[in-house]
């Protein structure tokens, strides 16, 4: 199987605090990986290092065979590595349609895909339709509900046509049915070949989505394997239940 993402001995410190301690992880193309851990375990730091928002102090990150160390976040996105944020970060002065347009103009176009104006417009609408926001295409993000904001965030990441999507707590604060909506979206995306790493605290969602579970505690990877097995791991139980 092709390794899409290869993290080798990744380390990150903030002054004296070790945020990531020799993390190694390989993700195969098409996988659905759940990444869990208590607050402060290093999940978001790991995502930031993978996506180029933070520079790792040790180790390396390879994506689709290419070494990513030292390149900017936008270059990672252009290579096919997209993310959503823990707290939605829409472009507040742009309409939903224009929010979709940005990754298409700057990522898809930068890859040299020949897209006409009509293609881009149609693709923006199509993406919004897919997440059920087509009717609000001309609205500003401030008019959206919490779940719609999460969907916008996902749609914008999808617009970059990623090979790997890292969804960072995309379901936080949502109701049961809203969580189902987001899960359905992620499954659909995965079925189209997009590899997904889901970072989430809602265990029901993680367990139903993931085919593999990785657990971080205090910046260290303590478990990696099928979700049922991992949840029975005594170290994981200790980390979660004390």
């Amino acid at each position, binding site marked *: 199987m092709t390794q899409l993402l290869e993290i080798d001995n990744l380390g990150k410190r903030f002054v004296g605090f070790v945020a990531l301690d020799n993390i190694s992880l390989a993700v195969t193309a098409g996988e659905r990986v759940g990444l869990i851990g208590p607050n402060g375990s290093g999940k978001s730091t790991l995502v930031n290092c993978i996506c180029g928002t933070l520079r790792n102090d040790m180790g390396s990150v390879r994506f689709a065979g290419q070494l990513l160390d030292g390149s900017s976040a936008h270059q990672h996105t252009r290579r096919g590595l997209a993310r959503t944020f823990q707290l939605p970060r829409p472009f507040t002065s742009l309409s939903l349609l224009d929010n979709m347009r*940005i990754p298409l103009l700057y990522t898809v176009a930068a890859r040299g895909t020949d897209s006409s104006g009509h293609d881009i417009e149609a693709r923006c609408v199509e993406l919004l339709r897919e997440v059920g926001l087509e009717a609000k295409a001309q609205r500003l993000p401030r008019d959206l509900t919490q779940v719609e904001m999460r969907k916008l965030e996902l749609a914008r990441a999808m617009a970059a046509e990623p090979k790997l999507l890292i969804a960072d707590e995309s379901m936080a604060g949502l109701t049961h049915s809203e969580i189902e909506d987001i899960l359905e979206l992620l499954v659909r995306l995965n079925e189209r070949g997009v590899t997904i790493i889901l970072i989430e605290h809602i265990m029901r969602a993680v367990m139903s989505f993931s085919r593999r579970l990785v657990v971080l505690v205090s910046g260290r990877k303590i478990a990696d394997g099928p979700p049922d097995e991992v949840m029975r791991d005594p170290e994981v139980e200790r980390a979660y239940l004390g």
Partner: protein
Amino acid sequence: MRSSLLFLICLIVGGAVFAAAVALGNDYYFFAGYVVLQYVVLSTAWNILGGYCGYVNFGSAAFFALGAYSTVALHRLYPLPIPLLLVFGGVVSGVVGLGTGYLTLRLRGAFFAIATLALAVVLETLIVNWDYVGGSRGAYIVRPESIGPFGNYIEYLFLIMMLLAVGAITVARVIERSRLGYGFATIRDDELAAEASGVPTLRLKLIATTMSGALMGMAGAPFPYYIGYLQPSSAFGLDYAVNSIAMPLIGGTTSWVGPLIGAILLGSLQQLATVTISSAVNLLIVGLLLVGFVIVAPNGIIGLVHKYLQRKPDDFVGRRRVGADAPGRASGRAR
């Protein structure tokens, strides 16, 4: 509206204003008009970085003065035609803008603003101590009485500044409706999200600082010919820094029209106050208007007009009608 059409309309309006000033037969209108047009260029240039990208630049006077002192330096070597001086001043200020960008663009908010203010102080100190361009004594530039078909040199300067203003407005408008403009808007809204969407934020910010600096330098290049005697305190005047921020804020920062309206309104008011009361009240006018607008219309005149005309302000995205004329829009592709 196509940018080329806007350019044509601006040229026609500019031509009409010029003809009206000639018909009135009073040089004062050229002197006053020149200042207003100079502020149109300065505020439009400031808005490229401050309004479109959200980076507040307090160092406008430094870029303006660089343009002015480039002219003085060249004038001492060999008096060149003003269009060439404009290009030279623009290049010098653009390069300094690029350098400033490299040094400061990792700063944000108040830190960036303070860094640009520091740039102005450093450059002023350098000029004060540079004898070649007059140092603290200042430098005289004797302008010719007339040039070519123009009866008076001030008419020529007015026309030059008019063309520069038309050019600056057209550039701002083209940027606003382009891929670059979308990139700038994402930087203003959220840089982290912009990077995650593939926007090369640092490169775009450098483009913005360079363009903004270059236009400010071009606005300053003819200034020594206008004023006749250039000294550091006049080139680095507080008026330029304050006005180039206040004018876009009053007009509206998210559109090319905002700085134009703000500059015409505030610039004309200041000229009126100068001849009827005193030039000393100019900054007072700016301060009072700014306070008023921050309270009543934080999005400037453009924001007020949108709110009034549309009744559904949500349909507007501030800098443009949602989706209209967007790059990648099937029926309204950027020109």
